[in-house]
């Protein structure tokens, strides 16, 4: 006789586990013979959620791949060196030409006028040399070559422009367009500009001219806000080339960008939108998860006889759990596979939308990574929402399984199940956070989703208890409707949770979008200046002030000197070695506007720490810094910043911090220098004017005709452009949010379907007892009306709180409640619920009583 050892026991234990698993798989396969009957909602919920995540991810990847594939063309070269206010020195240029193929481009914002000066617009002027473009191809409407179009004929230079410029100025091919002190003949219309996709919002249409003609415009003056780009094609690894460049020209003051990071603006934009849409997609999946849970619960309830029989025949709890868990997993994979196919093909369907919304060509194909991510999310959600029903089926004693739903008591799922639940929920949350570009935002989302789930759960409990506790209504249909909210097995909880979550997202999105839109469209426009005038030369100030201040309709003028500078070090540490919070990295990313002032600004900012320097200060350089940015960088009074201004590095000490209100759209600067350090540097001035809307055009004409180098930026137009971008993003977000509503609707449909048999039975009995069709329909309408209305009210409340939080805390803007948006979504939800409820139960009304009533 062998003595049992712990090793033997362990082995037997393992074998028994494997045997149970095998048996479970065998039983599962038998269950699968029934196909997907009873699982359609389950499959649809998973497929929808997974498709949303996979679709968003795939489209995003397609765009990113497109950006990456065209990176050289988008950047204009393999390396782009950008200098502001100045050109490269001869020495630098010689070195660049000796070490690669160089194309020089100058960009400036300026005004363009038609020949007779009757109309004018702000344009993005770009002067290109004969090597442009180094990569990619510029396409013109007439099909000719760019270099042939950009020539000089009879002393007049030619240029090519966006169709928008010709349209706005009423120009035809061959017409003259005035820019600065010269004019250009419009040779052709630009169809495609390979390196245009560097920014989401352009302030005006493009006019492209030969670089040789730039000097004739008279726009390049000391301090004017122009950028010189040197795009280089190199024959060695980019990093090595940049290292050699840096070794040769330290502190050159240029911003170096290589094609590995060709379009950070678009990349950031795509990343942010992707993150937002992915999280909304995840909400869809979570909402669908409620449907998954309901389906699994209903399915397992329908299998009670089978489970009871299996248990009576000796099946262990473990075997039951594994059998049905495997069954659910197999079906989950089917639903997920459908979602992956739809999601994976989304870029193909989205191609025209991408082309319309983004200035890049997406690389359309199937991408594995977003699909793997969506697959993982799908499996985790399926498990998360199935564990509790599975554990209940496992734990309910065989005898209890024979009883009907009324006798269901709460059954403690068990510590192991709760641990498993916690593990899956943590993994899901972790994956949502880790896979996000902005993890803090994703963390907020996860926390918000958890809070929303708990809040909706308790709200549902509250509704059920309140409906039970309320006095019996006298009106019979109302009493039946109210009672139906709290009946055993009533779908109240899952409908409030699922439809409510989707609706909350929609209300939040609509309110945020509405707030931004209203803020931009109304609040800002009321307080914002009508114009920014940029590139005022110092010697033009007196005349400019005289012209503008005496102009009819002008109410207020603000003007400050402006230079461009780049923060290179913070407390002696180079900024590229400092981790900056994503919301503030724009401050260190490139050139920023700087000014110098004797007196503190009177509007738009307040000194909140430290002291402003005396008006006659003439000591070492001091700066006044943005208080919010200082907090983000963890710096304060006495800390130092190194700022490169026109190639000269200035180390300045922070003397005070200002709290800046960016919403006013007045002139605000992150960095303000003390007097004595920038006055002598080449600089321009920037002016704001508050002017009556009726005088705007006349003022623009008067200023830009008198000073051709000065550009007028119409704030109204910029905000309108901004609004249209917000609207486009809003459309995308609302579309995905609609998927969350669709998932909620599926859950609602599922809940109605699950209760269908009961409703048919109830309707028949009601008829037997003398209820007319009107009585039954009345009760149904009231029930779904109450359910829809309650869900909508809770969602409106939670969505409003969420939107308020985002607007006030994240965007730090003023909150405006928009009742129309909330009322509209509330009405839609209620109507949707009633309609679906009625459609789902209409069949019940037409049922013949006899077949149900005959003795079995």
């Amino acid at each position: 006789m062998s003595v049992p050892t712990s090793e033997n026991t362990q082995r037997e234990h393992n074998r028994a586990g494997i045997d149970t698993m095998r048996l479970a798989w065998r039983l599962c396969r038998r269950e699968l013979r029934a196909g997907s009957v009873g699982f359609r909602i389950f499959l649809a919920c998973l497929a929808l959620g997974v498709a949303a995540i996979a679709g968003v991810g795939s489209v995003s990847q397609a765009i990113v791949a497109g950006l990456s594939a065209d990176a050289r063309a988008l950047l204009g070269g393999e390396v782009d060196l950008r200098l502001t206010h100045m050109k490269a020195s001869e020495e630098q240029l010689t070195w660049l030409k000796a070490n690669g193929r160089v194309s020089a481009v100058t960009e400036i914002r300026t005004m363009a006028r038609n020949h007779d000066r009757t109309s004018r617009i702000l344009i993005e002027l770009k002067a290109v040399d004969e090597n442009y473009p180094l990569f990619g191809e510029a396409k013109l409407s007439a099909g000719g070559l760019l270099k042939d179009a950009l020539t000089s004929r009879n002393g007049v230079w030619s240029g090519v422009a966006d169709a928008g410029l010709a349209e706005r100025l009423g120009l035809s091919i061959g017409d003259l367009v005035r820019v600065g002190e010269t004019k250009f003949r419009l040779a052709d219309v630009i169809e495609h500009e390979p390196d245009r996709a560097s920014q989401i919002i352009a302030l005006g249409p493009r006019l492209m001219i030969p670089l040789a003609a730039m000097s004739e415009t008279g726009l390049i003056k000391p301090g004017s806000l122009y950028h010189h780009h040197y795009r280089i094609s190199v024959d060695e690894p980019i990093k090595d080339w940049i290292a050699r460049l840096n070794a040769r020209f330290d502190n050159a003051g240029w911003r170096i960008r290589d094609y590995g990071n060709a379009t950070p603006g678009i990349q950031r934009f795509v990343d942010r939108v992707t993150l937002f849409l992915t999280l909304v997609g995840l909400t869809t999946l979570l909402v669908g998860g409620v449907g998954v849970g309901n389906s699994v619960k209903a399915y397992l309830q329908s299998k009670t006889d089978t489970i009871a029989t299996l248990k009576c025949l000796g099946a262990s709890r473990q075997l039951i759990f594994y059998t049905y868990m495997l069954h659910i997993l197999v079906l989950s994979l089917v639903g997920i596979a459908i979602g992956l196919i739809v999601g994976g093909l989304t870029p193909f369907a989205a191609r025209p939308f991408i082309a319309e919304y983004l200035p890049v060509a997406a690389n359309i194909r199937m991408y594995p990574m977003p699909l793997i991510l969506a697959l993982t999310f799908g499996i985790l959600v399926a498990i998360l929402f199935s564990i509790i029903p599975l554990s209940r089926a496992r734990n309910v004693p065989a005898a209890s399984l024979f009883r009907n739903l009324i006798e269901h008591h709460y059954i403690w799922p068990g510590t192991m199940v709760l641990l498993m639940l916690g593990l899956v929920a943590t993994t899901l949350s972790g994956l949502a956070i880790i896979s996000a570009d902005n993890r803090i935002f994703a963390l907020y989302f996860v926390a918000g989703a958890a809070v929303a789930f708990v809040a909706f759960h308790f709200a549902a409990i509250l509704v059920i208890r309140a409906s039970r506790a309320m006095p019996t209504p006298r009106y019979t249909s109302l009493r039946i409707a109210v009672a139906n909210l709290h009946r055993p097995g009533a779908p109240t909880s899952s409908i409030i949770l699922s439809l409510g979550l989707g609706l909350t997202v929609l209300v939040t999105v609509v309110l945020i979008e509405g707030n931004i839109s209203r803020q931009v469209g109304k609040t800002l426009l009321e307080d914002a200046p009508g114009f920014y005038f940029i590139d005022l030369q110092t010697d033009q100030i007196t005349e400019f002030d005289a012209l503008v201040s005496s102009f009819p309709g002008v109410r207020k003028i603000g003007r400050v000197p402006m230079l461009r500078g780049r923060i290179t070090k913070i407390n002696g540490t180079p900024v590229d070695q400092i981790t900056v919070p994503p919301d503030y990295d724009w401050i260190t990313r490139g050139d920023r506007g700087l000014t110098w002032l004797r007196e503190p600004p009177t509007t738009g900012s307040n000194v909140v720490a430290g002291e402003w320097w005396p008006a006659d200060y003439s000591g070492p350089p001091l700066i006044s810094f943005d208080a919010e940015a200082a907090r983000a960088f963890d710096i304060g009074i006495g800390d130092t910043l190194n700022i490169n201004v026109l190639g000269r590095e200035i180390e300045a000490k922070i003397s005070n911090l200002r709290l800046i209100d960016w919403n006013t759209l007045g002139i605000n600067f992150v960095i303000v220098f003390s007097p004595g350090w920038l006055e002598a540097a080449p600089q321009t001035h920037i002016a704001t004017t508050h002017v009556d809307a009726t005088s705007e055009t006349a003022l623009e004409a008067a200023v830009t005709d008198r000073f051709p180098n000065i550009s007028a930026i119409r704030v109204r137009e910029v905000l309108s452009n901004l609004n249209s971008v917000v609207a486009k993003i809003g459309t995308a977000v609302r579309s995905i949010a609609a998927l969350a509503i669709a998932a909620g609707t599926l859950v609602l449909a599922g809940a109605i379907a699950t209760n269908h048999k009961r409703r048919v039975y109830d309707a028949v009995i009601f008829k037997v007892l003398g209820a007319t069709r009107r009585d039954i329909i009345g009760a149904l309408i009231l029930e779904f009306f109450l359910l829809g209305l309650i869900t909508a009210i809770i969602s409106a409340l939670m969505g409003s709180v969420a939107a308020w939080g985002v607007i006030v805390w994240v965007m730090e803007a003023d909150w405006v409640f928009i009742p129309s948006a909330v009322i509209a979504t509330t009405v839609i939800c209620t109507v949707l619920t009633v309609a679906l409820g009625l459609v789902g139960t209409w069949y019940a009304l037409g049922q013949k009583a006899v077949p149900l009533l005959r003795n079995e």
Partner: protein
Amino acid sequence: MIKLGDLHLKLTTDGGDVKILRGINFQAEAGERVSIVGPSGSGKTSMMMITAGLERATSGTVSVAGSNLGKLDEDGLALFRRHNIGIIFQSFHLIRTMTALENVAIPLEFAGRADAFEESAQSLTSVGLAHRLTHYPGQLSGGEQQRVAMARAFAGTPKLLLADEPTGNLDSETSEHVIDLLFELSRKSGTTLLLITHDPTIASRCDRIVHLLNGQVDYTETLAEVNPHTSSE
């Protein structure tokens, strides 16, 4: 109270037409208690369903409590049942998600009775279920469920009570209690009773026994004929 004249019922099935009733003629006076007996498939339940307005006859006339059911639409039939009929089924047919009290109150509520719940509570008390008002059907025994169904059927004091094998799902002891109660309630309320049963003992407690065979009335026995020594309940 009930007049069925040359009643025919034909149902169309996949296998062709099936004649369920083949010319039934039947009358019952107000307050009379009639049992319908016959083998399975003889048409007992169909006859009762037509009498309740739950099934429409293919041909023939149906007059119950002065209403010509053939002329009523579906809602008219519902209103007719509301004011005239109480039904007890073998399978009880209670609404499982409603408490005993709610189940009994439902027809009264449909009838717009303001005292629906008070009346229902009284009705349940009269069947000995005062302590079960808030229980759901699943929490009640078969006998208790049938008593709830009886309380529901009698709650509106119907003119006609239809009972389709009310003890079919009950054990003999419970059956006896339920039938005693049924006859007692029927006697107290003066309701006409049409009772389908397979049990000759129960059938013999009625004033008259109608035997159905192949969808026709085979023959009828009066109480005196069945048991000359027993008086009616």
